[in-house]
């Protein structure tokens, strides 16, 4: 009994008064319904060919061991590794040689000129153009990532600078690390910010460790967005999404293992402290060496530049004021003894925004010195800390100097206003605009929020456009011989792939670029998931170099800054050692990524699954945790 007959038996034509429905069902429709899906036909045809070939060659049929998805990956691979039909015809080459030599040389001639012209006639100039086009798009991609970071920072406003303030437990640390990295689109940038905050005593190493773990997860958002570019082809989307999410899964698994361990016993802090305890602060030539940023940053800043100082003032709590006078440690000790309670040991009373980080190396930081100190009737000044001139006092008319020469006063007079930093306190630092230059500021006269929104939208569109161009060009360039070479290189050895991923990432200083460029190639099946995992692991380790380079130029707290940079490195190295060398362990991230890839083929939610995944993993969960942490802090 054929499928058609079965279908007709189970679906007898219904009697209906509607004349349109009374017509019999056309045979074509019945045939269509009974036809096997095209994918199944392809797989069966490939399996049959492979079986026939195995019988002819007298070898075992490897296809029998493969799953349907794996067979489909092989079909795609074969399609791409077949010789590209772009060889120039002999007639074209003859014409080319004749035209370029103005008819003096023919293809049958002999000599160097003929050989050179014949060689030139065989060159595929379109492919060369596309290779240049790919490099151009990679450059624009980096520019767009930089612009996106600026756009989101401007859009987030000044309050986003306080994001790091609510880190008070490991979970919120991880979530803020994820959110910050998703917003600036670079784990290198987040890690550098974390390193500088630790260097400036604004963040403890303990909290920074968990934020670095979050930054590692957040960085994998870019290639997941890239994979979504393949939504028009179900198989490409499955492969691309698997290749992209293997990075996410690996990082999530590492955090799942190392977060509780480090929470129970701070192994990373202890280990890296022993390694970094002899590091000294950068004294001269403290310029961070960067490979690609000098070629990207001027163009990004030309469109819009973001005043990092403002966010620094906000995150470091200089909104009240910042003393511009340089005091000696002895002078700071004298100020501290006068303004802080318990004979200068408890400074919590001095300012409503006082934080523990105001004290550096046992003294109140010199930039935190007050403008004026007011003594009460008893001659004590523990409540008289102020950044502005106290009310009912004419400071312009002159006040008593706290330091007469270099000596602090022996005894304070009652009801007296002492000038410490005086008019040299800079106030209103947090009232400055975040947008400080570029076309958006100079020519378009935009507000911070407006410029942020425009640049965020523009960069998102730019990101999609770049990816489309890269994918399209790569698919033409790679086809044929290049695809066969690529297959041989990436399929040679997994450990070599780690080194390749590491090397590329060190060169471009961005794991996002490495993984985002490899994802479209994985989507067409040329890089298998098994090959993609080590490449990703290499990229993960390679991106740690940026943090290490940031630590080399830290002028204060070098040990802590080095600790954070080394934590990032060892977190990734330990993760690689845990999840890669043992084949059974390796299968955990691979299977999880395969599962996520298969979810994109789900008949109902398949095409929306990547979007749902992105929203839930990178925005909803971290955002909710951040909200809870913020509410708890308040």
């Amino acid at each position: 009994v054929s499928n058609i007959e079965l279908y007709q038996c189970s679906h007898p034509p219904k009697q209906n008064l509607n004349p349109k429905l009374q017509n019999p069902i056309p045979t074509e429709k019945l045939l269509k319904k009974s036809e096997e899906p095209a994918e199944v036909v392809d797989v069966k045809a490939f399996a049959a060919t492979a079986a026939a070939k195995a019988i002819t060659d007298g070898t075992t049929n490897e296809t029998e061991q493969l799953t349907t998805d794996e067979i489909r990956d092989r079909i795609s691979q074969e399609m791409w590794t077949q010789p590209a039909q772009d060889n120039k015809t002999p007639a074209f080459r003859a014409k080319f040689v004749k035209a370029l030599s103005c008819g003096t040389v023919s293809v049958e001639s002999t000599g160097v000129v003929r050989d050179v012209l014949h060689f030139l006639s065989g060159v595929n100039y379109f492919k060369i153009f596309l290779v240049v086009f790919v490099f151009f798009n990679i450059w624009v991609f980096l520019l767009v990532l930089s612009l996106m970071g600026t756009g989101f920072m401007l859009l987030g406003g000044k309050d986003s600078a306080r994001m790091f303030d609510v880190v008070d437990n490991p979970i919120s640390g991880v979530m803020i690390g994820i959110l910050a990295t998703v917003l600036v689109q670079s784990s290198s940038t987040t890690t550098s910010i974390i390193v500088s905050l630790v260097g400036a005593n604004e963040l403890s190493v303990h909290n920074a460790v968990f934020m670095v773990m979050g930054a590692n997860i957040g960085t994998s958002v870019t290639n997941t967005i890239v994979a979504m570019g393949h939504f028009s082809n179900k198989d490409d989307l499955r492969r691309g999404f698997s290749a992209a999410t293997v990075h996410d899964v690996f990082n999530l698994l590492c955090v799942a293992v190392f977060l509780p361990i480090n929470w129970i016993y701070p192994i990373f802090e202890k280990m890296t402290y022993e390694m970094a305890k002899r590091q000294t602060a950068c004294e001269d030539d403290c310029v961070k060496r960067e490979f690609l940023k000098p070629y990207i940053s001027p163009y990004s800043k030309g469109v819009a530049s973001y005043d990092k100082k403002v966010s620094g003032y906000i995150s470091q709590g200089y909104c009240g004021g910042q003393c511009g006078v340089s005091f000696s440690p002895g002078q700071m000790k004298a100020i501290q003894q006068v303004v802080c309670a318990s004979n200068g040991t408890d400074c919590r009373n001095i300012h409503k925004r006082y934080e523990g980080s105001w004290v550096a190396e046992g003294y109140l930081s010199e930039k935190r010195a007050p403008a004026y100190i007011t003594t009460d009737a008893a001659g004590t000044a523990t409540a008289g800390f102020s950044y502005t001139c106290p009310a009912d006092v004419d400071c312009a008319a002159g006040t008593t100097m706290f330091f007469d020469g270099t000596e602090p006063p022996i005894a304070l007079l009652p009801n007296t206003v002492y000038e410490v930093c005086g008019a040299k306190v800079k106030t209103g630092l947090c009232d400055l605009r975040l947008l400080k230059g570029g076309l958006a500021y100079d020519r378009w006269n935009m507000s911070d929020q407006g410029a942020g929104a425009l640049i965020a939208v523009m960069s998102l569109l730019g990101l999609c456009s770049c990816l489309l161009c890269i994918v399209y060009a790569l698919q033409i360039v790679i086809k044929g011989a290049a695809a066969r070479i690529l297959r041989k290189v990436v399929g040679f050895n997994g450990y070599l792939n780690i080194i390749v991923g590491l090397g590329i990432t060190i060169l471009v200083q961005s794991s996002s670029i490495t993984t985002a460029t490899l994802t479209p190639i994985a989507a067409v099946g040329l890089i298998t998931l098994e090959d993609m995992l080590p490449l990703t692991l290499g990229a993960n380790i390679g991106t740690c170099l940026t943090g290490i380079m940031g630590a080399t130029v830290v002028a204060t707290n070098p040990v802590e800054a080095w600790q954070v940079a080394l934590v990032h490195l060892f977190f990734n190295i330990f993760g690689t050692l845990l999840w890669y060398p043992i084949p059974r362990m390796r299968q955990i991230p691979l299977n999880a990524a395969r599962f996520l890839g298969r979810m994109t083929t789900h008949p109902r939610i398949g095409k929306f699954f990547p979007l749902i995944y992105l929203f839930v993993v990178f925005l909803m969960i971290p955002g909710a945790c951040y909200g809870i942490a913020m509410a708890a802090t308040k």
Partner: protein
Amino acid sequence: VGPEGEGDAAMVMLCLTFVSAAGILVYGESAQAHADRNPETLATKPRSDRQGFAREV
């Protein structure tokens, strides 16, 4: 190139990328439509790939 020139250059690069992407989308669609009408081209592709994004140019 001055600071403003760099901003302008960046905007030109971005616009070039937008135009290239739009061109690829339009050209890709028309190439796909053309390939789907050509039985010889169609026969070389896997069946499930025939409705996909145009890869052949």
